[in-house]
């Protein structure tokens, strides 16, 4: 238990540092897609909710889990969809210059 916790803390800190370094480089141009993309990635919480529903430990837990899966899945689908739509819109003027 204790070593699990320490491992988890290590992972959290390292991932946070990677996050800072990677996201600092994202152009302000793309800050809105960045937010919708991280939002979609964050919905990976669906994984926990799926297990909660599937294990069916109690009716109460299953009901909460089903709602959780619905909420997270809508973020996954909607988040990726809108991020892709936004990014497709960004075009340069260079190729069209004559």
């Amino acid at each position, binding site marked *: 238990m204790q070593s699990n916790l320490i491992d988890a803390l290590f992972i959290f800190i390292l991932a946070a540092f990677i996050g800072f370094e990677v996201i600092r480089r994202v152009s302000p141009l793309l800050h809105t897609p960045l937010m919708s993309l991280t939002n979609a990635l964050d919905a990976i919480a669906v994984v926990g909710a799926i297990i909660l529903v599937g294990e069916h430990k*109690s009716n109460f837990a299953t009901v909460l889990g089903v709602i959780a899966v619905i909420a997270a899945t809508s973020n996954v689908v909607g988040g990726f969809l809108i991020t892709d739509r936004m990014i497709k819109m960004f075009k340069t003027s260079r190729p069209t210059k004559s």
Partner: protein
Amino acid sequence: MTDFAGNQTIIEFVYLIASVLFILSLKWLSSPSTARHGVWAGELGMLLAICGTLLHQGIVDYKWIAIALVIGSGIGVPLGLVQMTAVPQRTALSHAFGALCVTLVGSAEFYLRSPDVPGFMMAVLSMEVILGGLTFTGSLMAAGKLQEILPQRPLTYKGQNFVNLLLLVGAIVVAVYLVMNPGAKQFFPVMLGISLVFGVLLVIPIGGADMPTVISLLNSYAGLSAAAMGFVLNSKLLIIAGALDGSSGLILSVIMSKAMNRSFTNVLFGAFGQVQTAATGAQEAKPVRSATAEEAAAILEAANKVVVIPGYGMAVAQAQHKVRELYDVLTRQGVDVRFAIHPVAGRMPGHMNVLLAEADIPYDRLIEMDEINGDLPQTDVALVIGANDVTNPAARNDQSSPIYGMPILDVDKAHTVMVIKRSMSPGFAGIDNPLYYLDKTLMLFGDAKSFVNNIVRELSGVHA
């Protein structure tokens, strides 16, 4: 038993690959040329992670999982197809959904495990539920304000910060009690309830202009609550995704608060919107110069360098496509047209960029504040469309101004300034803008969309 262990190893490997894909996804987002790869990497990672999870040994019933996945996708598709002008409220709503998921899973885990919850686990679980709960209601409030279902103006009352602080302390006290007595099930709803109320009260005093900071902050909270959930479920993938989302939100919050000259602690403790009240309107009617679309067109045509400063007003008037026509007609006539983007223009980070990109304006024409400010003194015409506070020179030279110290676009340094505005009434923040009374400033009164349209008609009429 060996089969069980084998399956578990496969799942962990799949999660590892998904984690790598998530990090690559954000890395590729750094530039518009690779950004779509980023989205694909994220999608692939997500797909792998969900499929891997379905292999989980403990799952006995797939029916409800399938039903929930289908319903969720059904809700997600329309949410992914909203108009670009509705992106801020959509984003707020998805923060709420993410937080809802985390809060529900956290609550279920508590009731399944209580009273057998180790101290640290209970602390993390409390953090997950408190952060998730306040993000859920806070984001719903923000979405409601942005959708204009709720009043956009800040609702403030005496002792607001004190009440908020009291609630936060209350939630933490209950959490500490639960850590010491994890069997006290009756106190769990109290903690959850306080955090839900806290989320509402946190966002109530926030006005539209502060929304970019708030949305970023809620983004960060949503990420941190997901990371806490990762600790509870001992899921490394979830910890990584939550940490990435949390740091992303934090970086954006810091950028936004700097762009509004608020200290980060000021933002963290929800002391938004206090600034608004100090302003007093201009008592004496100062003279302004106004111009017609015809005159404005003539000035733009004679210019070599034009910088357009878009703001939330452009989004409200849905004027971005007309602005694009203006950009086209001026560019054809050899005028150099660029767009100056203030970090907090609009209602969320990068809002203006998305709207202008939607209107097919090339992104290399969208220039950030620090870069364009050096060029503004050499600019012939600065055309302000629906922006106000981010152009207010009082932020630079009037110490008594409520926005003193906020970095602004130095619009007043351009040779000629034109401002499209509905009327002289002070904007949302109620702060008078001395820019409008300068000798070189021409006020163009009217709706942004129709006024830009008139200018375009004048310009193309001459050269038809």
